């Protein structure tokens, strides 16, 4: 038996629905159909009235969740694709995210975003929007990279008193597998050293963790030990774990699948440069996607995003200094 990343997301929602009567799921086609990616398969049958099909109204979907959360429920909203959350963004940034600050009362809700590129999905079904959400105050932004984290972090997200943006990577949905669901979890908001190494730190998150691990394998063959840090949560960012790693290696590459202006990689590099300047033996570097919309054709797409090959190249440059 094995469990995919998608299974884990489904199972976490099932468990949350089971354990907490205030949890409900809202989204397009999430009901009987089980969602575009089947992340809510069978849940409507099992929890009647708590897995609700919404109209194609992202603003209202998030707005409705905000109201329900203010009233003590814990809504989990599924966007069909992260990219469509731009039309619900205002309710998330200006309503959900400001509620605690403005009123002192929590707004516990989760916005699930099927994120990231897959071959052939093009400019509007491939985006990674963590940087947009993380820039505004008031939100937690999670980007699980493993089956275990997909499960335990989604449960954490649902239990948390704050609005959480939960960025799931579509490329991991079916392919990433684990033996079973985890019994224990890495502590909330902690980054995780996915692979220890002493020569260079590669900070990554979501699907890029796997590219980074593959790059680390490649470099191992060349005699370099890469430490791969999986951020897990990009806001709040666990600077301590990153700095501890850079303290060991003296070198840093931050990788993000999103675009190069701003974003997680800029935040990581600039924190390390500010707070860990003396730990650095070489200029810290970033690697991101190219600064164009995400191409539809796989030939272009695979050149647009960071891959193990490009990460390995960038790591070599950091090491070469």
């Amino acid at each position, binding site marked *: 038996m094995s469990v995919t990343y998608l299974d884990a997301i489904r199972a976490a929602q099932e468990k949350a629905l089971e354990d907490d009567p205030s949890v409900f799921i809202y989204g397009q086609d999430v009901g009987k159909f089980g969602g575009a990616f089947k992340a809510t398969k069978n849940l409507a049958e099992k929890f009647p009235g708590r897995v609700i099909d*919404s*109209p194609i*109204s992202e603003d*209202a979907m998030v*707005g*409705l969740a905000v109201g329900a959360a*203010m009233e003590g429920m814990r809504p989990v909203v599924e966007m069909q694709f992260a990219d469509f959350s731009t039309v619900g963004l*205002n309710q998330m940034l200006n309503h959900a995210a400001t509620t605690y600050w403005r*009123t002192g009362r929590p707004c516990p809700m989760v916005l699930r975003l099927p994120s990231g590129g897959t071959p052939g999905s093009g400019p509007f079904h491939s985006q990674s929007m963590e940087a947009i959400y993380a820039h505004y105050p008031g939100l*937690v932004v999670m980007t699980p990279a493993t089956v275990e984290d997909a499960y335990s972090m989604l449960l954490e997200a649902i239990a948390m008193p704050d609005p959480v943006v939960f960025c799931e990577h579509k490329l991991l949905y079916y392919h990433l597998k684990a033996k079973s669901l985890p019994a224990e979890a890495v502590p909330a908001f902690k980054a995780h050293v996915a692979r220890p190494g002493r020569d260079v730190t590669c900070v990554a998150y979501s699907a890029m963790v796997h590219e980074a691990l593959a790059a680390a394998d490649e470099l191992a063959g060349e005699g370099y030990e890469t430490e791969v840090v999986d951020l897990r949560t990009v806001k709040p960012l666990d600077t301590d774990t990153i700095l501890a790693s850079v303290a060991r290696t003296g070198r840093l590459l931050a990788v993000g699948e999103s675009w190069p202006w701003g974003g997680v990689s800029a935040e990581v590099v600039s924190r390390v440069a500010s707070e860990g300047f003396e730990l650095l033996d070489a200029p810290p570097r970033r690697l991101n996607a190219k600064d164009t919309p995400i191409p539809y054709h796989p030939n272009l797409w695979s050149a647009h995003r960071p891959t193990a090959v490009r990460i390995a190249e960038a790591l070599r440059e950091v090491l070469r200094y």
Partner: protein
Amino acid sequence: MATRTMDREVGKASSQAEQDPMERMSRAMLRARVLEDKLASLYRAGRIVGGVYLGRGQEGLSAAGGVALRKGDVLAPLIRDMAGRLGFGEPLVDAVRAYLGSKLGPMKGRDGNIHRGDLSRGILPMISHLGAMVSATAGVLLAKRMKKEKGFVGLTSAGDGATSTGSFHEGLNVAAVEKLPLVVVVADNGYAYSTPNDRQFACTDLLDRAKGYGVEGHGVDGTDPEACWEVVGRAVQRAREGAGPQLVVGRLLRLCGHGEHDDGLYIDKKMKSSDRGRDCMEVLRDQMKSRGLGKDWDRWEKEAQEEVEGAVKKVAEEPLPDPFEEDWRATAMVGAAEAVQKG
């Protein structure tokens, strides 16, 4: 919601207040008008923090919503809803605190004035983005239904301009799909800031939209408080009975600028001198007088003045927000996170 004590707040007065909605209307409207007049003069005196947006001329329509609601209901007021807030039971002193920036205000100086709200009383703190409160109010109602509460209603308002937002459309549509007990009161005052209706929509009457959403529609002369009470009251009743969302469109004018910084000179003079430009306060005063309540009216007005003066005086001595005492936290999770990391 359990802690809301609307009755105590609305009428310190006789138990008659409980029976006669027009008395409650009168008192809410008078308190709103007197308070807003005071705020306008404080604004001119430079004593207000932030902008001042008044409900002058719209008190009747607004109050009707507040008065029609009861404990356990939810109100999502907009910028011209002082009367509705007071009618529903928002403490007048909270409004004053917001405008004068008191730290004891409902938002502690973090947000202010028209954005104030109090979730414990069922008053949602509006965000500025027009239309956004419709779906949020729907969400509160959905939650109440899921929690198996019964007989509750939610009411929110919107201007003619706000109906052009995608957010309004999505919110009302979602509420209709879910058949939620939501009343949306549109105050069609002919203008959105300076923009007249004919640059805002092309239908003859916003009420024509009700059918397209599959909701019940109610039109009312917003300058006539008795009519407002009747029509809004009926809409609230229909929602409470399970008839689904209700769209009320009241026609009126705002008898002031968009905000107190604005002279409102763009408002059509003909419209101003037409029936649509009547002052609902005068209409109600005459209605109450003809019911033999002229003396009560005067007393209520005097009480409102004393209350407002008292509140302003009291609040003026309250502490202002102090940045060094702020904890500057936008999320509640820090504590939880620390617990996890230590544990």
